[in-house]
């Protein structure tokens, strides 16, 4: 197993849902069937369930770890769960689905390659389905897997499945998701979760686990536009590495090779890549999302916040950016409100120049008239920064196209933004 384990890929996916749509059962089944739940955990969950007077073992108690969550029987925060099969390693960001937790859904979606959306076959598409799907689209999750659950309660009917699928496709025409798949399942009985269902011979597609294991994720990172935000400069000043000056960071886009012509932004100085290191190991080329150290042919003044890019392909360098913001604080922004903006390794001051519209997260309606902005609202704004930031549209690059806003007095993260 050793060798194959080392060759495994990592798939991060997000789920969102309410208490009764079978999400906990589904996740419980994935964890259980991949042997990621331990006996003592199950014992604990069983005894906690009993203490609460439940008749069944409530798998949600596995990760509803906080006292308040356990007492109130709700998920408050993003819970991360881990499992592996011989083919892949998975990180689930499991988020509560209620509208008041939009901020958690956005958080879970920000690092996901795939969104798992559950629909109750009896109810079809509900408001929550639209909301989750829209967030997945807004956060540019490349793949959506729609699980139409509780098929056992609609007699495993192909018609029911096709109807919901068609409805969803109708709705999804408004979204920007490249890859959407549909799987009829019964999480409770395990149909089409890990094993193919004998109750639904009409379904010829892959099971959920098989889909998660094989969906193509290698191209989810941007490997076209070379972007290397400098986190810090390595200057050992030891005898052996007296003149070493390495730029440390994580590649945010594209591929860098030895000898590549590069430009440093915002200064505009040019040079060539001399060496790429990962500790003692010198490598010929590096790509997103690798953390590396890079040296250049020329001595240039470079520090944290600068970005090294391929000379032939440069991002926008600007003090004016238009972004879609998810607002995380009860106290909304106003025109001329000031914040600290984090973007790649940059930290700058920013001011809200204009608020264009507020988006209805359920209908995707753009409202240019609105009273106030508060927690969980999604708005489009124009920002002016004190220093230029080197950005791409979020659609093009999720790293160089994302920002957060921090309140200067409370230090809280008040918004997440995607460059339009």
């Amino acid at each position, binding site marked *: 197993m*050793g060798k194959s384990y080392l060759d495994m890929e990592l798939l991060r996916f997000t789920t969102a849902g309410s208490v009764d749509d079978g999400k906990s059962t589904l996740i419980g089944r994935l964890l259980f069937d991949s042997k990621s739940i331990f006996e003592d955990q199950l014992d604990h969950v069983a005894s906690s369930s009993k203490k609460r007077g439940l008749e069944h073992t409530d798998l949600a108690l596995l990760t509803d770890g906080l006292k308040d969550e356990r007492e109130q029987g709700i998920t408050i925060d993003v819970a991360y769960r881990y499992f592996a099969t011989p083919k892949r390693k998975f990180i689930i960001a499991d988020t509560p689905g209620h509208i008041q937790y939009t901020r958690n859904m956005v*958080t879970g979606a920000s*690092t996901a390659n795939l969104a798992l959306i559950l629909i109750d076959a009896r109810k079809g598409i509900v408001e929550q389905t639209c909301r989750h799907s829209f967030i997945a689209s807004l956060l540019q999750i490349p793949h959506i897997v729609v699980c139409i659950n509780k098929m056992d309660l609609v007699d495993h009917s192909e018609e029911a499945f096709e109807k919901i699928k068609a409805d969803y496709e109708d709705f999804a025409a408004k979204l920007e998701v490249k890859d959407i798949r549909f799987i009829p399942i019964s999480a409770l009985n395990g149909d089409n979760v890990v094993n193919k269902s004998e109750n639904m011979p009409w379904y010829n597609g892959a099971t959920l686990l098989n889909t998660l294991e094989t969906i193509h994720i290698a191209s989810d990172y941007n490997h076209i536009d070379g972007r290397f935000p400098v986190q810090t400069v390595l200057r050992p000043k030891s005898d052996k590495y007296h003149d070493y000056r390495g730029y440390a960071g994580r590649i945010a886009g594209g591929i860098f090779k030895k000898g590549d012509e590069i430009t440093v932004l915002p200064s505009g100085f040019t040079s060539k890549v001399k060496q790429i290191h990962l500790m003692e190991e010198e490598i010929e080329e590096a790509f997103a999302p690798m953390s590396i150290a890079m040296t250049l042919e020329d001595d240039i003044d470079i520090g944290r916040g600068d970005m090294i890019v391929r000379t032939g392909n440069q991002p926008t360098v600007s003090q004016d950016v238009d972004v879609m913001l998810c607002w995380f604080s009860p106290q909304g922004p106003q025109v001329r409100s000031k914040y600290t903006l984090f973007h790649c390794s940059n930290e700058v001051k920013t001011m809200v120049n204009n608020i264009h519209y507020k988006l209805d997260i359920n209908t995707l309606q753009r409202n240019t008239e609105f009273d106030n902005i508060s927690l969980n609202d999604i708005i489009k704004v124009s920002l002016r920064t004190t220093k230029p930031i080197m950005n791409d549209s979020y659609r093009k690059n999720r790293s160089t196209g994302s920002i957060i806003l921090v309140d200067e007095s409370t230090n809280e993260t008040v918004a997440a933004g995607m460059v339009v």
Partner: protein
Amino acid sequence: MMKYNLTHLKELESEAIYVIREVFAQFEKPGILFSGGKDSIVVTHLARKAFWPAKIPFPLVHIDTGHNFPETIEFRNNLAEKIGAELIAPSVQDSIDKGRVKEETGKDASRNWLQITTLLDAIEEYQFDALMGGARRDEEKARAKERFFSHRDDFGQWDPKNQRPELWNIYNGKKSFGEHFRVFPISNWTEMDVWQYILAENIEIPSLYIAHKRDVIWRNNSWLPMSEYIQLREGEEVNNRQVRFRTLGDITITGGLESDADTIEKIIGEVAAARQTERGNRADDKRSETAMEDRKKEGYF
């Protein structure tokens, strides 16, 4: 395109190195909370990778309960010397002597809670504004809710219900005077990932993790190591068994399991087949259903 695809271990490594470099860049006085366990050893290894060829720019901070495995202390001293890192070891015994805390009494007394005061005092004394630890989200349900950058107020407390959302890989380390951060670079690693990484990178670990002969007693469903701090209870007897430890805490609260896994490969086989969680043999977690959350809120690791 397969060529431009990282394996999951490389991706986790890259994420951790990124986080460690952010700590260096965003804080003035960061340190590594070093317990001598495999997770903090991996964090230390990653920190070396993050800054090579420069030296690791953080001191190793070890909260010394005085109830250590001798092997842990030896390993700690050797590692600090080898990598040229400063070692800071605030002592729980000192906190007791100064009257800051009172030794627990009773049958399951331990120094586990007492460490919190020693740790928070040290943070104040050395003015640490960020401490990195090896805690992982898969270990324990309260830790599953941790952020990479986890804020602590000026009493060192964690407020799990009001955590800052953490998006993409942008980490907000802003704080007011007196507050600090705990940072967990290997949040997304599982026990299996840690062992695979130790194997792949050939990282040295304390011999305690490898099966060895030892005097132990059977208590709370595991083999507790015999030491000067343990008093035999009625019906207990000292056995010499071949054991190894899955996690390392104080010698008074860390139970071992019988094992003949004497290589990392064999340990990985054991981890793959394990039906009990890693911390299942930790008496400190068994005090209540939310023992970890309760301690973390007060300032625990």
